[in-house]
């Protein structure tokens, strides 16, 4: 069975920590995400990271579904091989959309992140390439770095990363898209909580190298 499956694999993307294949699962179009062994990493460390993240991703995806966040469905997890079969979702990565659309979408991204945070989950890898816009809705994926946490610091790390991504990859629209993100975020977590998280974002930024402290 496995052999037959593998012959139908098509490599879609060689990601940072996993290879993404297009395949089928019980007749359904499916994405296979394999966290392959990395030769450059010490074996103990490598196994620890890959296993932990595979389990965590699967767990988190099921959990966030329970409070209404749209993610790809999980079909099957092979913990030993660090493989996850996921639902195939057709759409476009937010990263590749035109600027004016990204600005609008950022509000929805903010809303989704707000829901995650409100339910005590940080995503850990909030980039514009981890959101897919389908015809119906916005889908969030890649929960390998997600964590259960209520801490303001952790939530602020999510926001800071997203800001960093806007600031580097989407320079032309950083101001508007960040505002749009915050707008959506505020709707879910409320003004007081948002202010606290944003204040913590500044604290983190000041901790950075050569931030404007002097």
């Amino acid at each position, binding site marked *: 069975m496995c052999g037959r499956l593998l012959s139908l694999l098509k490599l879609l*993307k*060689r*990601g*940072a*920590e996993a290879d993404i294949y297009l395949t089928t699962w019980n007749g359904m179009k499916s994405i296979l995400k394999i966290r392959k062994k*990395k*030769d*450059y*990493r*010490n*074996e*103990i*460390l*490598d196994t*620890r*990271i890959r296993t932990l993240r595979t389990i965590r991703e699967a767990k988190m995806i099921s959990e966030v579904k329970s409070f209404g966040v749209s993610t790809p469905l999980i079909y099957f997890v092979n913990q030993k091989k660090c493989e996850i079969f996921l639902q195939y979702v057709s759409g476009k990565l937010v*990263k590749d959309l035109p600027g004016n659309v990204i600005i609008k979408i950022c509000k929805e991204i903010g809303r989704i992140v707000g829901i995650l945070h409100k339910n005590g989950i940080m995503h*850990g*890898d*909030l*980039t514009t*390439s981890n959101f897919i816009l389908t015809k119906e809705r916005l889908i969030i994926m890649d929960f390998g*770095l997600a964590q259960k946490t209520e801490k303001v610091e952790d939530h602020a*790390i999510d926001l800071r*990363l997203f800001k*960093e*991504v806007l*600031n*580097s*990859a989407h*320079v*032309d629209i950083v101001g508007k898209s960040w505002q749009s993100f915050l707008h959506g975020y505020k709707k879910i977590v409320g003004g007081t909580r948002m202010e606290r998280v944003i204040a913590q974002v500044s604290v*983190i930024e000041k*901790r*950075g*190298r*050569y*931030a*404007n*402290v*002097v």
Partner: protein
Amino acid sequence: MLCLGIESTAHTFSCAIIEKKRKQGRILSDVRKIYRPPEGEGIHPREASRHHAENSPRVLSECLQKAGVKINDLDLVSYAAGPGLGPCLRIGAVVARSLSSYYDMPIFPVNHALGHIELGKMLTGAKDPLVLLVSGGHTMILAFLSKKWRVFGETLDITLGQLLDQIGRYAGFASPCGTKIEEIASRSSTYVQLPYVVKGNDVSFSGLLSATKRIMPKGLESACFSLQETAFSMMGEATERALSFTGKKELLVVGGVAANKRLSDILVSICKRHNCAFFVAPKEYAGDCGSQISWLGLLESSKKNGVQLADTFVRQSWRIDTVEVPY
């Protein structure tokens, strides 16, 4: 065009002369004098600046002599205006100002981090790389986009160089201790579990620092080995994430830690996986040197005139992502 570059951001005082013809640069000389703190201690800014002040005349004249150039032949002078240690930066700036006013040369304050990148590009021939800048002062992953180097990932607290130095000092060595740690690590292959902290494209080393200190009494060799494996794998992953996000086809590594063999092995393996060309600054020009400042001065002078003496600043906190790059 001949430019004298003066570097004095941290422990190194260096003068270098580069000749630029069209877009080609040739390093005529690069003389350095490095401040060494006592064993087990870090840089003391005042002592370092005293060292720089005392050594500057000798480094400067040796630099001119090696290049076979007279001061009057120089077309411009550039100095590292930041980021760095204030007292040290001021020494370089004073030398540059004196030369500029006495010999009536245009003067260019330049960004030290940008110097690392531009010199690395010039020496390796990388065109549009993702840059990994790893040193005592920086741990950043950058790419060039609409006129500025944008940060795609960086350390949230201490740098990779600081991490290695602090562990080295804790073990009683004199900083910089990267080489020493690499050597000790090579004697072990016992991995002890340490915290591995990657947050998106960013890394954090402070927890790793404390945890490594804790395991050091149980064996320095395995501690150094585990430290390198963990820290470099974190860097590797952050780099991989940035590569896959930006889709860049070149990776350039610059800064003092670029000299580490284990780190570059990891990065080579990553580049292979992503079908990406790997460039690393040659060992003698990876760390702080006058050449990086001189070359950047030459690039600046192709687009701008020098600044007025009154505007020759030094800025301890001068982030590279705030510098506009017109060339």
